[in-house]
């Protein structure tokens, strides 16, 4: 039994209990066959160590639990499912027991060498090691599973001192299943495992205290502390409860008043300001209309909450809205922007917005008296499209004033430079002009 852990692990690769022929669980029978020793000899060793210090019994029970019985894993028809559940249930126990075995071996070695370790230290240490192993495995094992760290279960098993049987074919095929299962491990299982670990550690502490005689004193102190704690809870619980309630009420009230202050500040800055301006400019209907429109747009944006785009990134819809607002303010013409879909702007997209802005300016300058300008933008998978439509009287291309033609050419050329195209046509029935800007997406940008 004083074999080194690694040696033992290696030996156990082929080690099988033989319950059929054995006396109790077939441990000695199997071990004897593996080591080529008469099982009777081993039985005598186990019996002697049991009588001497009880360790023989412990070792026997450990071996019973850890060493698989003959045919348990070799039997072909064991389904992957059954193997998985059984293995999973046993895994934690195996680790704990394995660490326990290591510690026992270590302590026994020390004892043999003659270092003075009393039972007062030995048994608590064994318990602590086993409990600690349970808890540690739980907290260390989980992040790996959560990362989807695809560790072969055989590797995990190989790390165990008990080397719980080599990864046979059915087990490797069950590897993904096992990992899935670990990921989705039920909470009760985790809690009960941690509970067992904690219980073991606490038991170790109690055993240690019992051995050293400190338990009696500790009990008194603990009892006194518990009584005082209960008294304190009874006294202060209502106070704390009231405090917590009033704190949360206060917090809610503070949030409410902050929100109110924010709304009030916004209304002061915007709506009241605009209303004051409207009163001053009451004799200029165009100006008043422009003021009202600007305020309306601003308030709508505020109410709908600006979409969360990463800082420094411009998006089509917002950029067009901003351009429309600029033109609107400069020329006092209402511009309605309707956007379907949205897309972040690259350099070509910026050019599209700039061209659209030119088109809006153009419409506002030359057709602004005829009513609102309609801007429609659609961001599709393949292309960005912007339509700017005015309700002006239409025009004869030959009679276009020079500056207007210049603007049109700048729109056209700009679009072409960025791989897009622009066209303009008269709306039917003399209903104004429409400028059409198209930018194909996914050329070099995607």
């Amino acid at each position, binding site marked *: 039994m004083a074999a080194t852990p690694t040696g033992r692990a290696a030996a156990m690769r082929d080690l099988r209990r033989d319950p059929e022929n054995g006396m109790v669980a077939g441990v000695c029978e199997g071990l004897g066959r593996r080591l080529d020793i008469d099982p009777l000899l081993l039985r005598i060793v186990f019996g002697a160590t049991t009588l001497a210090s009880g360790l023989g019994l412990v070792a026997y029970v450990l071996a019973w639990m850890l060493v698989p019985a003959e045919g348990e894993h070799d039997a072909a028809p064991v389904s992957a499912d059954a193997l998985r559940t059984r293995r999973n249930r046993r895994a934690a126990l195996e680790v704990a027991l394995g660490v326990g075995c290591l510690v026992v071996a270590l302590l026994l070695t020390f004892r043999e060498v003659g270092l003075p370790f009393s039972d007062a230290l030995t048994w608590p240490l064994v318990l602590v090691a086993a409990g600690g192993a349970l808890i540690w495995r739980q907290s260390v094992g989980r992040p790996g599973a959560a990362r989807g760290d695809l560790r072969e279960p055989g590797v995990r098993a190989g790390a165990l001192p008990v080397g719980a049987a080599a990864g046979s074919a059915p087990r490797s095929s069950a590897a993904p299943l096992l990992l899935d299962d670990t990921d989705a491990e039920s909470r009760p299982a985790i809690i009960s495992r941690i509970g067992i670990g904690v219980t073991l550690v606490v038991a170790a502490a109690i055993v240690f205290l019992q051995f050293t005689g400190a338990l009696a004193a500790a009990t008194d102190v603990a009892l006194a502390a518990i009584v005082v704690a209960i008294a304190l809870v009874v006294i202060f619980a209502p106070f704390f409860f009231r405090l917590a309630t009033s704190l949360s009420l206060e917090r809610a009230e503070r949030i409410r008043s902050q929100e109110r202050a924010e709304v009030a500040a916004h209304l002061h800055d915007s709506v009241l300001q605009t209303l004051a301006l409207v009163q001053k400019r009451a004799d200029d209907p165009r100006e008043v209309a422009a003021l009202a429109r600007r305020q309306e747009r601003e308030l*709508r944006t505020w*109410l*709908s909450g600006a979409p969360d785009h990463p800082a420094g990134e411009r998006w089509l819809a917002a950029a067009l809205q901003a351009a429309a607002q600029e033109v609107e303010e400069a020329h006092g013409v209402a511009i*309605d922007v*309707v*956007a*379907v*879909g949205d897309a972040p702007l690259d350099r070509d997209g910026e050019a599209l917005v700039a061209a659209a802005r030119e088109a809006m300016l153009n419409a506002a300058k030359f057709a602004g008296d005829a009513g*609102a300008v*309609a801007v*429609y933008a*659609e961001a599709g998978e393949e292309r960005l499209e912007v*339509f700017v*439509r005015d*309700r002006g009287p239409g025009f004869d291309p030959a009679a276009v004033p020079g500056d207007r033609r210049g603007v049109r050419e700048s729109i056209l050329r700009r679009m072409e430079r960025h791989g897009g195209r622009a066209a303009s046509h008269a*709306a*039917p*029935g003399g*209903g104004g002009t*429409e400028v059409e800007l198209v930018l194909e997406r996914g050329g070099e940008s995607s």
Partner: protein
Amino acid sequence: MTATATGARNTRVVLVDDHALFRAGVRSELDGLVDVVGDAATVAEAVALIRAQAPDVVLLDVHMPDGGGLEVLRQIGADVPATQFLALSVSDAAEDVIAVVRAGARGYVTKTISGADLADAVRRVHEGDAVFSPRLAGFVLDAFAGAPAVPAAAAADEADLDQLTPREREVLQHIARGYMYKEIAQRLGISAKTVEAHVSAVLRKLQLSSRHELSRWAAARRMLE
């Protein structure tokens, strides 16, 4: 209210809005164009008035206390089958607009619409057509975006409701671009009646479709009440 030159009966309209000032403004703008037979400031008043008057068209505000236009539509249900509803709102939030249209309104226009355009919209709704403002057209295109334009061979009728035909998309895009129906008809080379048929089909899809975005809007709206 004066009769029209042709002698035909004017469209009878009930106005529902909680702002007295706005009601007065709409009344004066519509004066002579349609026959405003009554107005209401609350949901309860509106329901009683609509049941009593059975008007041709109800101009319905979306935002009112006690549930707004949606609640009026729900309480009226199928009580006055001849009455059509046209949502008239200052709101241009997609969830408001889509919810009220899905609840049965035949269309939606914003309050900044001119008197003549509003009268025209009322007349059109009365005739059974749908009225889409550019913004509503944009919302609908947005809501139906991502659906395959061409239905799969195996697609059933229900699946067809969840997508627009290419022609319907085209018509909606033109509405969003600010085109009037007759301008769309000229541009696409179809009759104005066909344009109206397409728009009505889109409205029907909007009301019957089970598309996720639409349901979500409607659900969010109902939870707010």
